[in-house]
């Protein structure tokens, strides 16, 4: 039976063959978005639901010093409800936070944020996008009025120039990377901006090896050069944008000479990149964490938006602004309102008309104040007294791990709802075992806005239950105690029907019946609407209908190398693993990549006497980890690259919690470290 891959945001369609309690093989049907292709994670990594580390029954403990006690669902849910209600009564909604999961379905995210907003009166609702594309979301929303890829994946076949910035696409979105590389073989050009020699850099027609964290300077310099050379799309800028003059003036300091000094890319190459991007008719920008995970993440994403507007590359086929989303349903989680400032459909919490719509639908009054963002919630412990955390492992994924652990130690009440034990489970008071993607129905929305079905192929193990059921049951108890309305649904499709009623302008035409054959892309207001492929063809989703330039300026990273910590640490991902590693390291994939390897440039290795494969220590101001050195010139001199999937050697013990002022994303991509030999 067909379902959707639970790993990255490409949303590949898969057909796992299951026999005798294991996966025999995984084939892919010839339909969008992957047309039969898969990567190693989708092909060989779908067996984590069979892991021995599955959580099988609800567990509770009153105090962290006690051991967990197995309890019935009724007891676990009653206890959780009573604790949340007690905090609500004593400290008010500000002391509660609810984190829906971008790994769960749209229906589940919708219900979870509804529980937070309609029953607990809190907008402290957020999800892991805070740590990945929140910077893109801020920039795209304020400039264009929409936070997603503007163009569909199949536009790759119409693109003549790819500008890929800070995306290790061959490892993190392999199926999209294969398409882009094939298009390049057909004759398209590809500019890759990355400090590392990634698979994309290898396939590029022009590779700009920038110094980590200097993308913004490069992009602004490209814009300035395009203006100077008269290569910009004047008609487009006049007709479809605003804020141009002020932005243009802000580019003054970004000369090619200065850009070369800051980024270490030769100015001729920067000029060439700018010229290619501006003069190729269909030029599409693609980016990921290399842009966003900086203290200037929002500014860097904005610089890309500005550049695309300047060259008229938004609102047409084969071009656009395309942030590649990292989790199976991270697009959907945002769409469903798992954010502190917006309700489902990106309707602003602070907007009275938007609140009225949901107040009428849910029959309750809503909190008009935007809530705290995930990184801020953890900082606000113990004023925040209770967190309901679903499908997320912040101990592995948040920066500055030791600090976060201390915060969690101080949190009076933590509910963890997950399918597998992870590094955060030991901090919980209540553990609720959830069903995996193979064990429930629902929908995920992939990186190009395609809503796709997941289907129940198996029964959940032990007493595990689908997240929607758990949230609904908890909501029932909260609603009863609070005297608020709470609808009980027979299943995911009925919840989806409420979503369609809530945000008909984007989801009204998406029905389970239509999703039977293949996914449908939003916005899709009516059932006879095919779903919008390219956004903003006629107008932008802003009050004026025009896109807005925002001036952005280069600032150095929060922590720069020093004598004591002479290297720049950049964290990221590898092909065989996914995020906190909870899924991939409990699958067949662990065999292919069992332990952390840290990339060290040969010149640095030679200076320090470090051999390939030698176990070393990586040390920052915040902690140290042990790792095997992979001596390779994939990573430039002075830079150390560490994937963060490995709980026993967590790269995020080293990273710092310096945050972007707009998106509150941590600076995962730049920290100062030193390397120590073991003896």
């Amino acid at each position, binding site marked *: 039976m067909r379902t959707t891959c639970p790993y990255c945001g490409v949303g590949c369609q898969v057909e796992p063959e299951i026999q005798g309690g294991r996966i*025999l093989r995984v084939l892919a049907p010839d339909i969008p978005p992957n047309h039969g292709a898969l990567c190693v994670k989708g092909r060989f990594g779908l*067996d984590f639901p069979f892991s021995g580390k599955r959580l099988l029954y609800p567990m509770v403990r009153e105090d962290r010093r006690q051991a967990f006690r197995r309890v019935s669902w009724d007891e676990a849910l009653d206890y959780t409800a009573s604790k949340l209600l007690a905090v609500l009564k004593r400290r008010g909604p500000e002391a509660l936070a609810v984190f829906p999961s971008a790994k769960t379905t749209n229906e589940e995210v919708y219900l979870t944020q509804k529980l937070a907003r309609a029953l607990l009166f809190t907008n402290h609702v957020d999800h892991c996008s805070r740590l990945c594309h929140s910077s893109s979301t801020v920039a795209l929303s304020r400039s264009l009025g929409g936070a997603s890829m503007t163009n569909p994946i199949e536009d790759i076949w119409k693109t003549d120039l790819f500008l890929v910035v800070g995306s290790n696409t061959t490892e993190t979105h*392999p199926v999209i990377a294969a398409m882009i590389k*094939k298009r390049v073989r057909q004759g398209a050009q590809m500019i890759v901006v990355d400090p590392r020699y990634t698979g994309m850099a290898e396939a590029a027609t022009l590779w700009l090896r920038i110094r980590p964290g200097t993308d913004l300077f490069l992009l602004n310099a490209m814009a300035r050069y395009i203006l100077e050379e008269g290569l910009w799309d004047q008609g487009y800028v006049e007709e479809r944008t605003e804020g141009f003059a002020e932005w243009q003036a802000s580019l003054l300091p970004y000369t090619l000479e200065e850009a070369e000094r800051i980024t270490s890319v030769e100015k001729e190459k920067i000029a060439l990149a700018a010229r290619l991007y501006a003069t190729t008719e269909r030029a599409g920008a693609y980016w990921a964490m290399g842009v966003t995970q900086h203290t200037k993440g929002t500014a860097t994403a904005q610089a890309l938006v500005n550049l695309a507007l300047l060259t008229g590359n938004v609102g047409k086929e084969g071009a656009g602004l395309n942030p590649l989303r990292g989790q199976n349903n991270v697009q959907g989680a945002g769409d469903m309102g798992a954010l502190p400032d917006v309700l489902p459909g990106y309707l602003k919490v602070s907007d009275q008309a938007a609140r009225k719509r949901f107040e009428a639908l849910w029959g309750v009054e809503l909190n008009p104040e935007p809530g705290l963002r995930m990184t801020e919630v953890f900082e606000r412990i113990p004023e925040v007294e209770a967190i309901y955390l679903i499908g997320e492992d912040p101990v592995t994924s948040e920066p500055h791990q030791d600090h976060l652990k201390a915060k969690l130690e101080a949190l009076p009440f933590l509910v963890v709802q997950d399918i597998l034990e992870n590094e955060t489970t030991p901090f919980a008071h209540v553990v609720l075992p959830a069903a995996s993607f193979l064990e429930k129905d629902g929908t995920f929305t992939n990186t190009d806005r395609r809503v796709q079905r997941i289907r129940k192929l198996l029964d959940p193990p032990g007493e595990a239950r689908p997240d929607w059921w758990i949230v609904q049951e908890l909501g029932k108890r909260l609603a009863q105690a609070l005297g608020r309305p709470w609808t009980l649904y027979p299943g995911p499709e009925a919840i989806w029907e409420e979503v369609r009623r809530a945000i008909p302008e984007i989801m009204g035409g998406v029905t389970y019946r239509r999703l039977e054959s293949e996914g449908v892309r939003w916005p899709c207001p009516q059932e006879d609407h095919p779903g919008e492929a390219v956004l903003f063809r006629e107008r932008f989703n802003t009050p004026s209908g025009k896109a807005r330039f925002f001036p952005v300026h280069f600032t150095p990273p929060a922590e720069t190398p020093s004598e004591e910590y002479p290297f720049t640490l950049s964290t990221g991902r590898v092909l065989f693993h996914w995020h906190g590693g909870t899924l991939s390291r409990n699958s067949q994939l662990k*065999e292919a990549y069992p332990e952390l390897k840290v990339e060290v440039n040969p010149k640095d290795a030679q200076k320090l006497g470090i051999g390939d494969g030698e176990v070393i220590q990586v040390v920052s101001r915040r902690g140290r980890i042990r790792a095997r050195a992979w001596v390779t010139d994939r990573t430039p001199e002075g830079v150390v690259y560490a994937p963060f999937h490995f709980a026993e050697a967590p790269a995020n013990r080293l990273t710092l919690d310096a945050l972007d002022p707009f998106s509150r994303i941590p600076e995962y991509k730049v920290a100062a470290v030193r390397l120590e030999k073991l003896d």
Partner: protein
Amino acid sequence: MRLKVNGHEAEVQEGTLLLEITDPPHLCYHPHAETRGLCRLCLVEVDGRLLPACTTQAQEGMEVRTDTEDLRILRRTLLEWLALTTDLSQAPSLLELLKAHQGRPQRWGSVSLSRREREPIRDNPFFLRDYAKCVNCRRCVDACGDGIMGVYALTLEGKGLMAHPTTPLDRPLPETPCVFCGNCVQVCPTGALRPLSMEV
């Protein structure tokens, strides 16, 4: 444009492959692997000439025959040859074709050079390369290379009957650029490449 297929008039769009109109038996053709015209099973008769349907575009006024006695004999011989030299035990669709063509491989006696003796190669955590079952259709090579991935971890080595896909210089897969996407496994029509999870 109009053409005749087995005596019947047909109207098709320009650029249509004969394979898409006539559906003869075929083996190496795969829409995404971009492999064309190797296995010869899909040969059809076009105005008296034999052409592979998977590489031939329909043209105005063509007369195409897909099921002449000569073609059946040719296909039968090709299938017998495959069955003679290759382990088709995990290729049920080929075995069915052989049966449908009344193939009797044993009528050729035995061949001295056979791929059947090749040992399966188990050099990675995900899938097996069992070239005793390989019919050299090249789908895996092309899926890995130009067709889908652009990785080029597979190539064709050897000559004549002993030619078979493998890695460059026969290195173990983990020492090649292989990314273990398994797209080669998905397009393999004979079970020569198969997931380890299918081995009991």
